[in-house]
């Protein structure tokens, strides 16, 4: 019975959304105020209905109701209870329902707390959201219905992909979706602003927290996904430039540009068209990512089952959402006028450069991801684009971005003094130089690139610290005064400092992983020894054991260095229900570095093929990403101050700003 309740709730939500969109657009045009009230309440009601639908599906998973086809295909009675629950979104249909749940949640929150927004802006934004909700609910109901029944009821399910039975994987999709879907709000705000012909500081102040929180979620989601791939897939790396990884990275790059440029709109009333375009682009890239994963146009380990009907439907949504919004942009963007002029050397100018670099990086990833598709369509040739392409182009771009990030935060708004800003940075430059020299001396290989990378890391972190020190006038007055200044510093400043500092830590991990990682592959029998990065590793024993729903081979290694000994264990698991194997790498953290061992099957009878890695400073990848996300969260807490000239209903400056909606 419960699956039917979920199904009907979903149909009701769809019908409500179908009329909510038009009602909102009518309400925004003046019309009858009751339209607006209905439409706002509808947002909350739709969320309630979708939540009911989602939890009834989760209930079917919890009680292993195999009469539901989706549960039969993706669950099994022998699965641990928690993975039964997380299995709700471990498949295409369920994950789309989670996507819709988050989308309607954001709309409902906006409808409830949007009183601060100008009424027509709020209604138009909710109206665009309603159109997106309608499209996705239709997609679920017509092509990906998770509530279909099976008659007769099978005795047991066909199991969840064992790779997905892992805490890291169970929680990373919800975070990614919170990020992807979160960017729908800036998107809707942007389209609404274009329709009204007006984007000002008020608009930017409304959009900024949404863009920031979406960005924080996306950052955490990508980090968790990468962490999962690192310890679960047993290949010793953390990023593979897989199309689906790229699909999450592109909105992140565009979203990073967005949160920077929105600040310019808020503070300086400039770069409006650009910020709107970025808001549209970021969510568009999220949609493209969805298309990529679910249509089967690109092969990937992450891809869901190939179904052309779904692909066509999502493509239709893509055309409507992206094509529609960009068309509105083409016709309306020049009705926005900026009042804030700035010289090239200024905070604004630095942010323009930041935006250009981020978007070029995004384009590089885009081309790399879709090049195989373009070539296939044009010539029928099958090719793939691998890591060398990305490393070649991406590393210099990223380096340049980090190099300039330190300078940008120190430049003044409107008109900056580059010489003075660079002078303030001399401690960072000196520290960077010292570290670069140390790296060049002590590195056993990749000395020059290593020196450059380490110097860059220190430069960026130093720049972030100096920015704060300058703001609180550290060492230029009594310490107590600096301290009270520090307390009064806006969250946005602390957020920027932490985000840039976190980025520096992340870069430290990424650089040392790509420059100084060591790997040894060896066939080992019990008692055999291998050597890596000064460790002597012995394969002590391999034993068979049984888990709740798998059989496993557990290998125990003993590693010793300088008289200190540690024991590590890794597993290879075989899941009979799916006939699949997974591996649990043996990982021993040494500070922030990891000794990482994975092993294959003993097919020859002479021993197990063992891959040993020493991953230096790999921990900084996750720590850095976490600190960066924390910075975003702190900036999210800062709601900004009201710009003086907008405090009262003063007539808008001359020009099209006052253009009627």
């Amino acid at each position, binding site marked *: 019975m419960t699956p039917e309740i979920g199904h009907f709730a979903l149909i009701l939500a769809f019908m409500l959304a179908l009329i909510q969109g038009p009602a909102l657009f009518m309400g925004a045009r003046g019309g009858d105020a009751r339209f607006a009230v209905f439409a706002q309440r509808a947002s909350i009601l739709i969320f309630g209905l979708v939540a009911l639908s989602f939890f009834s599906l989760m209930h079917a998973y919890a009680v292993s109701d195999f009469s539901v086809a989706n549960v039969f295909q993706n669950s099994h009675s022998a699965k641990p209870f928690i993975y039964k629950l997380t299995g709700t979104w471990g498949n295409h249909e369920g994950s789309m329902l989670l996507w819709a749940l988050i989308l309607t949640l954001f709309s409902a929150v906006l409808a409830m707390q949007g009183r601060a927004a100008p009424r027509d802006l709020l209604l138009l934004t909710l109206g665009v959201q309603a159109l997106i909700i309608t499209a996705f609910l239709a997609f679920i109901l017509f092509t990906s219905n998770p509530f279909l029944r099976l008659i007769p009821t099978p005795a047991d399910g066909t199991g969840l992909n064992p790779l997905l039975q892992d805490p890291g994987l169970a929680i990373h999709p919800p975070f990614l979706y919170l990020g992807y879907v979160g960017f729908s709000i800036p998107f809707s705000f942007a389209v609404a602003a274009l329709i009204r012909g007006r984007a000002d500081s008020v608009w930017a102040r409304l959009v900024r927290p949404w863009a920031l929180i979406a960005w924080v979620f996306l950052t955490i989601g990508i980090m968790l996904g990468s962490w999962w791939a690192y310890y679960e897939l047993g290949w010793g790396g953390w990023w593979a430039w897989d199309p689906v990884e790229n699909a999450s990275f592109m909105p992140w790059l565009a979203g990073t540009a967005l949160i920077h440029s929105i600040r310019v709109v808020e503070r300086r009333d400039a770069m409006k068209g650009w910020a709107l375009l970025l808001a549209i682009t970021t969510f568009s890239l999220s949609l493209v990512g969805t298309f990529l994963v679910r249509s089967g146009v690109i092969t990937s380990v992450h891809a869901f089952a190939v179904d052309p009907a779904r692909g066509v439907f999502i493509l239709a949504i893509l055309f409507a959402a992206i094509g529609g919004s960009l068309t509105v942009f083409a016709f309306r963007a020049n009705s926005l006028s900026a009042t804030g002029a700035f010289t090239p050397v200024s905070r604004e100018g630095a942010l323009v450069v930041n935006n250009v670099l981020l978007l070029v990086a995004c384009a590089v990833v885009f081309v790399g991801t879709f090049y195989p598709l373009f070539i*296939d369509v044009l010539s029928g040739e*099958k090719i793939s684009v691998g890591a060398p392409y990305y490393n070649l182009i991406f590393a210099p771009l990223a380096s340049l971005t980090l190099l300039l990030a330190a300078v940008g935060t120190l430049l003044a708004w409107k008109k900056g003094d580059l010489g003075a800003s660079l002078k303030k940075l001399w401690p960072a430059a000196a520290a960077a130089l010292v570290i670069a020299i140390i790296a060049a001396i002590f590195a056993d290989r990749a000395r020059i690139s290593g020196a450059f990378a380490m110097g860059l890391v220190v430069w960026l972190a130093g720049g972030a610290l100096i920015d704060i020190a300058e703001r609180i006038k550290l060492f230029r007055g009594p310490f107590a005064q600096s301290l009270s200044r520090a307390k009064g510093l806006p969250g946005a400043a602390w957020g920027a400092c932490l985000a840039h500092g976190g980025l520096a830590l992340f870069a430290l991990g990424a650089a040392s992983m790509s420059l100084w990682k060591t790997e040894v592959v060896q066939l080992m029998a019990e008692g055999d020894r291998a050597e890596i990065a000064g460790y002597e590793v012995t394969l002590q024993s391999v034993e068979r054991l049984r888990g709740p729903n798998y059989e496993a081979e557990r290998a125990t290694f003993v590693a010793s260095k300088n008289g200190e000994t540690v024991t590590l264990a890794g597993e290879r698991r075989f899941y009979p229900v799916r006939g699949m194997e997974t591996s649990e790498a043996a990982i021993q953290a040494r500070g922030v570095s990891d000794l990482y061992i994975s092993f294959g099957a003993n097919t020859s009878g002479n021993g197990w093929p063992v891959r040993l890695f020493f991953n230096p400073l790999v921990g900084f990848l996750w720590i850095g990403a976490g600190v960066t996300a924390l910075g975003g969260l702190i900036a999210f807490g800062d709601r900004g101050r009201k710009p003086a000239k907008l405090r009262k209903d003063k007539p808008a400056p001359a020009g099209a700003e006052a253009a009627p909606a």
Partner: protein
Amino acid sequence: MKRVLLIIPVLLFLVVGVFFYSGLKRDPSAIPSELVDKPLPEFSLPAIEGFDEGFSSEELKGEVVLLNVFASWCVSCHIEHPFLMQLAKDDAIKIYGLNWKEKPGDGKAWLDRLGNPYTKVGDDQAGRVAIDLGVTGAPETFVIDKEGRVRYRVAMPITEAYWNDKLAPMIEELRRQ
């Protein structure tokens, strides 16, 4: 801003969108084979250890069959195997198994454990026949027509959906020819 510039984003998207649309009709995992529409290279595979007979390329003529490359060391073959068992159970098509680069005994142990969907199994321990066939990895499956020509190559595990959408109609068509 100039009006013309503002149209660029939507134009760019349209170009990309057209590629997406044409991409939908393509199958990224169907790697074209040099052998498609050509006769199978001649081979004669011995039996794997524990089995009585292998098979030769000559035996594949006469009806539409599948030639499936598998090995016990291949994880994706584990994924594919249950569906091959189902095909065998339904008597949907004859499947010939090429046991690729396998240690003596491992192939039989695997088939004993998980079931044997194959009409016959041949041993290609050195991987020579696989080279002639242009095999890039396991599992890989060739659709062979009545004249013994390769008509299609699948370089991934065959799933139920792929079978229903792609292979079953194709095989139906080949049988009618």
